[in-house]
């Protein structure tokens, strides 16, 4: 056996170093784990200061011992290369592992172990953790707002139909493929509007009228986001083209429009839409609050979409315009077949960004008295019978929003991969 030099581990005594290093490292992890999960301090015989930093010391020494270059063991080399390149890296690695171990128990306790979900009143919540009873009891309101309970099937059916109709694109058929763009850009939004207008709003075909003020909760979040996304995209696209137009009138109107909407906060836009806007309308002209809000948010976001798309247009080489023109294509043909397909592909991440921001901006419609998910939460938390559960509500909303946004971001990433082209 060669002489052991613990300051400079080498390959000659590989197993010795490896086992002693791994042992120290595991002891360190075990110490933190037991302390965190079972509140047992296995080093309690030591002075408290030393006891608290001991896992660090053991961990760093352990990681130092297993840091053997070209050990020949694939996984060890990989580990050393990724997270254990030097002592500083080892400390960071340990720190992250310890933080994760330390933070699991309190989170688990709050979410599950000490939480309550049984019962149907505040008194059922006896634990120190979350009171999911609150979410359970209020779930209907969080999803449907003030929409009458016995009519909620109408929302369910229309959302179900909308999702089903959105899946048309999955049908594999060469013939249908050509019509898909037309379907998604024009037909689908019209169907969606008709469905929502007649089924959710009612007032015809013997369906009871439900005014938009009663709509709310998550379903309203979806409705507002959906229509805003659909409207702001084409408007933004035309604004982007307008801003690059050769015609001065079109260009200056586009610039003025974009800069105006980008320059004002959304919350003022919403106030204006509900307070100022009706003043300019003729007396007998009535436009629903929800419609006004959707138009306002759409125009607001369209300005952002326009600038994102303009970025994509500017990224295209001039040769693409030259080539399209030299083949005799006019402005619209050139843009529809050559420029926009490439530019839009480039700006998928930017558009996704804007759309995510839009979805997360929807709670602001509370300023005009429309209560979507967060609005309903704020309402519920002030209910005298259910005071003190704001935390649960916001965590719930955060999770829901996260799921929506993560799904959107995943989807946009897939689109990016799907339309990736080599230059």
């Amino acid at each position: 056996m060669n002489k052991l030099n613990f300051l400079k581990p080498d390959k000659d005594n590989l197993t010795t170093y490896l086992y002693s290093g791994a042992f120290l490292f595991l002891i360190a992890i075990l110490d933190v784990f037991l302390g965190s999960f079972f509140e047992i301090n296995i080093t309690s015989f030591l002075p408290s200061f030393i006891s608290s930093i001991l896992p660090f010391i053991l961990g760093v020494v352990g990681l130092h011992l297993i840091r053997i270059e070209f050990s020949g063991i694939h996984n060890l080399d990989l580990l050393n290369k990724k997270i254990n390149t030097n002592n500083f890296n080892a400390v960071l690695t340990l720190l992250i592992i310890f933080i994760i171990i330390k933070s699991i128990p309190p989170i688990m306790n709050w979410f599950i172990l000490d939480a309550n979900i049984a019962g149907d009143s505040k008194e059922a919540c006896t634990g120190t953790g979350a009171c999911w009873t609150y979410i359970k009891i209020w779930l209907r309101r969080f999803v449907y707002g003030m929409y009458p309970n016995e009519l909620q099937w109408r929302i369910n059916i229309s959302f179900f139909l909308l999702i089903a109709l959105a899946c048309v694109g999955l049908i594999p058929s060469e013939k249908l493929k050509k019509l898909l763009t037309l379907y998604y850009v024009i037909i689908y939004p019209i169907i969606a509007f008709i469905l929502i207008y007649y089924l959710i709003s009612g007032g015809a075909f013997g369906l009871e009228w439900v005014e938009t003020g009663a709509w709310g909760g998550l379903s309203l979040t979806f409705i507002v986001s959906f229509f805003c996304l659909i409207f702001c995209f084409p408007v933004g696209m035309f604004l982007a083209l307008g801003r690059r137009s050769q015609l001065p009138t079109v260009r200056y109107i586009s610039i003025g429009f974009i800069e105006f909407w980008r320059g004002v906060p959304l919350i003022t836009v919403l106030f204006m839409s509900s307070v100022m806007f009706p003043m300019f309308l003729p007396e007998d002209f009535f436009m629903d609050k929800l419609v006004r809000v959707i138009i306002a948010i759409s125009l607001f976001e369209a300005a952002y979409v326009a600038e994102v798309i303009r970025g994509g247009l500017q990224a295209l080489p001039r040769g693409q315009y030259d080539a399209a023109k030299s083949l005799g294509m006019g402005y619209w043909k050139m843009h529809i077949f050559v420029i926009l397909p490439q530019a839009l592909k480039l700006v998928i991440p930017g558009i996704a960004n804007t759309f995510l921001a839009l979805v997360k901006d929807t709670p602001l419609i509370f300023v005009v008295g429309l209560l979507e998910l967060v609005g309903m939460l704020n309402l519920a938390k002030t209910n005298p019978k259910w005071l003190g559960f704001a935390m649960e509500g916001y965590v719930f909303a955060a999770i829901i929003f996260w799921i929506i946004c993560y799904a959107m971001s995943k989807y946009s990433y897939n689109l990016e991969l799907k339309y990736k082209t080599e230059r």
Partner: protein
Amino acid sequence: MSEAIIKIKDVNKWFGDFQVLKNINLEVIQKQKIVVCGPSGSGKSTLIRCINRLEEHQEGNIIVDGNELTEDTKDIEKIRAEVGMVFQQFNLFPHLSILDNCTLAPIWVKKMPKKQAEELAMNQLKQVQIQDQANKFPGQLSGGQQQRCAIARALCMQPKIMLFDEPTSALDPEMIKEVLDAMVNLAKQGMTMIVVTHEMGFAKEVADEVIFMDEGMIVEKANTKEFFANPKSDRTKLFLSQIL
């Protein structure tokens, strides 16, 4: 002598304060092949870009196939459809397959039925010998293949005139020949061609006339043999001595 298909008369053009074209006069008759050469920045590219109005000239007249190019030319697209152009950087549409690159304009500009357009395109791709690549995307092809596709794409519009803007300057040396071969082939079929190039071998083989430009002016214009055997101006002599 037949009527000139392109007439350029006293054309001047400025980029800001800088005059790129000075008093250009040029007539091209049908089936004529003209090679334009000269140092970079001499205005050769600008000149041929003016012929299908990718650039606008400020003074003088350019008449292409009987239509004068002016600001009010309503049907500029129609004129462009009759003038094919091939660029230095190929400028294929990267989001479309080679076949779609070739059929896009015939279908949407000429309103040709899709089947007919595809037949035509395959025919043209065969001429430049890349029919096997029809379903690939431009990014998957070599530079020479891309440029040949660009030639085929322009020919699919069945133009009366073809403009080439340094078609081989962005290519690897070993790919230049395949592109030049395609161009020689085209010339033999009687296409009217204006070619900006530094490939003097091509000029000698194909051109009826060679034009030498410098500083925005046409310095020398002569038939090919004359131009190489017996250049008149010193500037041309200097240029030729450096390039040959």
